[in-house]
């Protein structure tokens, strides 16, 4: 069943109560088991789109289809959607409302109507999945920002969603924490969970995602496979995004004959690995260090 559309937005528009437009005729599809990045600048409509995917906002126009059926906005319809689609908000302080880690993670599974044994098992699994099993009994306010973020993910994972939505998951995390988060996302993806994350970081989106959906001014301007991104310079520019640094660097090295044009690396570590396999270029011994600095300047 891999590759089938799990969720689909068909010309979805959303107008807020104050008249401002959050989404404008946005169409995109999320395939089962895929890794998707919603890439756009601040205010481009990423969060609004995620809120639609979880049924927290209803389109002013257009429709959302789940497994090919139009989304049902009745109480039971929304409960069924949220059972399958979990949303992790950007700011953990606005998502965690219980006093302790264990309690907060138990909130979702209890709302699913599971019995106590089932809830305890799910909480334990979810906390283990994000590496927070040791912190289960700590109060939320004793945790670091990165730990709170993990608890937020565990709170959603405990509901065992098919699709996980994450709003700017790397915001506010240092590089070590970002690597930890990537490992967690890789594990979840390997388990078959579809993931959609909103980000404004083109390097991160290119490195992590299979599919990239570009947003600009509330419009879904393009959707393409991440491997096609280097050919999308004009589309990226129109959405106010730069080409990923690794692509720019690779092109520069290809132009100087250091690396072949293919394969195109997805990240700096991959680029370094390619360079390590390439025979070293003899340095120009006539050029002095001071001359090199001058030419760089």
């Amino acid at each position, binding site marked *: 069943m891999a590759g089938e559309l799990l969720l689909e937005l068909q010309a979805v528009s959303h107008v807020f109560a104050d008249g401002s437009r959050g989404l404008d005729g946005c169409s995109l599809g999320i395939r089962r088991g895929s890794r998707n990045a919603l890439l756009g600048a601040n205010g481009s409509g990423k969060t609004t789109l995620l809120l639609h995917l979880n049924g927290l906002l209803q389109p002013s126009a257009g429709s959302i289809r789940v497994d090919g059926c139009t989304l049902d906005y009745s109480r039971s319809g929304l409960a069924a959607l949220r059972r399958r689609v*979990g949303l992790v908000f950007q700011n953990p302080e606005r998502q965690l409302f219980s006093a302790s880690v264990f309690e907060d993670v138990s909130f979702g599974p209890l709302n699913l109507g599971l019995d106590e044994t089932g809830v305890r098992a799910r909480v334990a699994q979810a906390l283990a999945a994000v590496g927070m099993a040791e912190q289960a009994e700590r109060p939320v306010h004793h945790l670091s920002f990165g730990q709170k973020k993990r608890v937020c993910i565990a709170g959603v994972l405990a509901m065992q969603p098919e699709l996980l939505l994450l709003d700017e998951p790397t915001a506010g995390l240092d590089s070590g924490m970002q690597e930890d988060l990537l490992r967690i996302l890789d594990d979840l993806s390997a388990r078959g969970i579809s993931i959609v994350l909103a980000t404004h970081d083109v390097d991160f989106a290119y490195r992590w995602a299979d599919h990239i959906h570009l947003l600009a001014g509330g419009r879904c301007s393009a959707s393409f496979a991440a491997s096609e991104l280097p050919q999308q310079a004009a589309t990226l520019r129109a959405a106010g995004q730069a080409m990923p640094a690794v692509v720019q660097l690779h092109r520069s090295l290809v132009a100087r004959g250091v690396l072949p044009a293919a394969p195109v690396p997805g990240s700096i570590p991959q680029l370094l690995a390619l360079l390590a396999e390439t025979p070293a270029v003899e340095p120009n011994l006539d050029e002095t260090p001071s001359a090199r600095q001058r030419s760089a300047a």
Partner: protein
Amino acid sequence: MLIEQAAYGNRWRRVSPAAKGSLALAGLLAAFVAATPATAAFVALLLALTTVLGARVPAGVYLRVAAPAVGFLALGSLSLLVAVGTDTAGHLSWGLAPDAGPRIATVAGRSLASLTALLLLVLTTPLPDLIGLLRYLRVPEVLLDLMVLCYRMLFVLAAAVRDTLTAQSARLGYASLRHGWRSLGLLVANLTVQIWQRAQALHRAALARNGGGPLRFLSPGFANAGRDTLLAAVAGAALIVLAAGLG
């Protein structure tokens, strides 16, 4: 924060809250059973020693937490010294209460014993565990929801106040009294909006996890809860019998 620190750092942290609750309840009953101030004081001493020596709550922390309550008790006792009434001419008059000494000693002794019983509970039991116990005792959900949200938001708002105060101070917001008042007003106005926004966000977060009704949570389990509760009940009963026996 001192209470938090003790509640999470004491030797009885992993003991079932039901056991600690039973002991505290027995302490409260013993305080009321104690007929003389000396007995009440003895019960208070036993409970305080149990907290400090049994649960290993540092004596310094214990005294600092108890100090405001003891101060309040002292003030209350002083007010009992004074009796207000009318004299023979029907005018309002006040003077030293005739039987104030024994009455104050009894009230103060019992209050002190009750205080130490409550301190035994709150200094050894983190609030989430206590809420779990209350949930088990079928306390109405709405009260528990309020307790959970107040406890959580207390720390969120404390952080928001700290951040805003720092940002204001960094731009000389409190450089003079006049500026200070203005900054304080801005702080309150800003917090009001923040509270409203946070409430909206938390509601949305609850909906996203299929919440919308009562906030239901599951507390972590405690090993040997039955054994510990039985032990606490026996110890509590012994305390009540001792208080009644001493008179």
